[in-house]
């Protein structure tokens, strides 16, 4: 293999591919970048067996070939080279790669490309296109409530379903649940559903943010989800298992529907939460509703107390308490002017939705389902028991 390329462009592409490299695998090969030269470009691939990143860099290919180069030294040296031309040459007989930039010459020990794992093919005929903005925003909305606890792998993922012209994403850590639906300009034939690791979906967001492309192509196969964003192909493993039957968790009727100004509530929560700190067990934040107002209270044995009062649409006295972090997460995830709390008894799940479609005040059934919903389990308030 022998290729010549522009150092700056190649360096950028290499850094991009390196995000897929494993830094703790016992398989040394996975600490490397697969470099494949052919047809006017060098393809760069990396995987840590959970995700894979592939991209390519334009190059003058003098001789085809492929090799796996240890990522760290490769990346570090290429990144620190001055602008100019870079020549990359693999010598199979010595098992080394020669790097030359002007008078600077390096030799890196490399691995045989045949040993690199087989990365999944992008299924062009299965794939569909959607606006990246929609995909990434939807991920962002539900990203607060996935579980960080690896002992229940299903909950570390986002349940993603594509249906007709909508994408729906659901996450839950069993204390709260987020559902976000987004309408898309495109229509799918048939439904597709998969549980994708939440962290991998956030990586899709990062790649999209760094690209100039507006579209993302998605290919959901049996074992992998692949996302094509410009010239980057990002793949992730899928999580196997049964996602909780979340629809059963959603109450069908509510005794109360109370709306509060969202911006004010967020600021209030940020201040009163200072008194909750991060204690275990967490100190709850209580919402004490009365006619036309809500008092937001945190009482900490150690630190002291915070009380703030805001106007609300409530009609009677009602007290409910939450984990302060979880409540703030839910309220912040909305982007409407008002937050609507839909509650029953103080220890039954409460739902937080934006006020869109709720203009006609309380009462009545949900004719127009909100496109975002955050369910949160209340906490028992120690001062009430």
């Amino acid at each position, binding site marked *: 293999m022998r290729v010549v390329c522009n150092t700056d462009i190649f360096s950028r592409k290499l850094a991009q591919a390196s995000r897929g490299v494993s830094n703790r695998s016992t398989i*040394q090969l996975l600490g490397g970048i697969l470099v494949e030269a052919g047809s006017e470009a060098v393809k760069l691939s990396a995987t840590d067996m959970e995700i894979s990143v592939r991209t390519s860099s334009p190059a003058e290919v003098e001789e085809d070939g492929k090799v796996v180069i240890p990522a760290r030294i490769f990346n570090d040296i290429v990144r620190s080279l001055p602008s100019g031309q870079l020549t990359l040459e693999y010598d199979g007989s010595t098992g080394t790669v020669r790097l030359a930039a002007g008078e600077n010459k390096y030799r890196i*020990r490399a691995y045989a490309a045949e040993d690199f794992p087989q990365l999944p093919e992008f299924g062009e005929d299965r794939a569909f296109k959607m606006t990246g903005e929609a995909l990434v925003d939807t991920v962002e909305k539900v990203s607060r409530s996935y579980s960080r606890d*690896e002992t229940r*792998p299903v909950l570390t993922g986002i349940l993603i379903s594509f249906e007709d012209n909508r994408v729906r994403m659901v996450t839950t850590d069993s204390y709260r649940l987020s559902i976000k639906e987004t309408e898309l300009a495109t229509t799918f034939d048939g439904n597709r559903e998969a549980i994708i690791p939440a962290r991998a979906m956030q990586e899709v967001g990062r790649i999209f943010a760094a690209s100039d492309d507006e579209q993302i192509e998605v290919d959901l196969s049996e074992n992998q989800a692949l996302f094509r964003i410009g010239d980057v192909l990002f793949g992730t493993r899928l999580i*196997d298992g049964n996602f909780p039957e979340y629809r059963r968790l959603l109450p069908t009727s509510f005794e109360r529907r109370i709306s509060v100004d969202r911006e004010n509530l967020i600021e209030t929560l940020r201040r009163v939460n200072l008194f909750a700190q991060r204690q275990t067990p967490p100190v709850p934040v209580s919402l004490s509703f009365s006619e036309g107002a809500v008092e937001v209270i945190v009482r900490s044995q150690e630190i002291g107390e915070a009380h703030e009062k805001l106007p609300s649409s409530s009609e009677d006295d009602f007290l409910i308490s939450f984990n302060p972090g979880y409540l703030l997460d839910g309220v912040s995830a909305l982007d409407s002017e008002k937050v609507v709390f839909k509650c029953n008894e103080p220890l039954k799940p409460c739902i937080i939705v934006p006020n869109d479609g709720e203009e006609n005040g309380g009462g009545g059934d949900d004719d127009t389902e909100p496109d975002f919903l955050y369910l949160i389990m209340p906490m028992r308030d120690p001062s009430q028991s």
Partner: protein
Amino acid sequence: MTAMAETFDGIVGNEAAIRALAKALDAGVSHAYLFHGPPGVGKRTVARRFGAALVAGGDLVAEERARRGLHPDLSEIRPEGMFTLMDQVREVVKLASSRPFEGARRVIMLDADSFNAESANALLKTLEEPEGETVFILFANAREGVMPTISSRAQSIRFDPVPRPEVAEFLRTRGADEPELYAALGRGSVGLSVRYAEEGELRSLRDVVFRAAFSFDEDFEGRYKVVEEIVDRAKKVGEAREKAVLEGFEEPDLRTKEEAKRAERAGKAARDGAVREAVELLAMLFRDAGVVRFGAGDLVSNVDRVGEIEAAVERTPDADWAGASASLEEARTGLAYNVSSEATLEVALSLTRRQILGFSRGS
């Protein structure tokens, strides 16, 4: 069928186990297997081949790569020291709930003897109802040693020591100079026989053990010295192993701390293994002396040292060789529980000395 046959090509012994596994490849696999049998008789070797065939699902190139440990869907979880740690268990749970990366299914190999109650419990649910198509292969020295909650969830595959002539034949094909001797020393383990054939450090350990075994005439100081020598040889075995592991890493210049640590651990494990091997060699030697004493010299394992053994037997006509061999059990237990090698060996030698000299000295 030809591909199946190739999967287990070149494996020596354990035909029944291999037949059962080949049939599984053909007719359908269980979600968990328990490979049980004494150490060194080929459980891991067979498991890697079986696992490689399972993940590759008929793709011969991928199968070959998996055999060399380079397939993302074939995972081998090695205990850290004595135990499989909770972090490793969490990793297993996560792997088991992931769709395969490139292959037909995931295969996870685990050492069931290294589970403590906590990790066993954490694994139960996953073992019971693995999501998807993950196949577990568990290793254990004895089926009885595995918690019933775990063994009942897995299909048992029994492994036995490989008959001596088969091992000798195998060593001959590898060009060993004394195949019969190394096959005998290996005690049914192909791996150990190969090590005797190819590791000078292990053979020199055996020389010292011979001296120690027949040191019953020596005083305390003499015995202490020979114990020191055994431990010293065991260290050399460990050092050789550590060096080999380090050289195995393909980028010695980029050697990370992690790799150095791994090599150090492997070295320490080899050293501890060598001390245990010394105790087994002692036991084998006393057994040899016992069979010579009763006129069954053709059953001797140390075929190259029959003369020495006969001389020792003649010197101590009243020795209880079987008793000497049995008294080593305490040393085995001690080593399993991390008692210092020196102390364990000294006590072992003084106990065996009593069995050997006990009667002759009194009369």
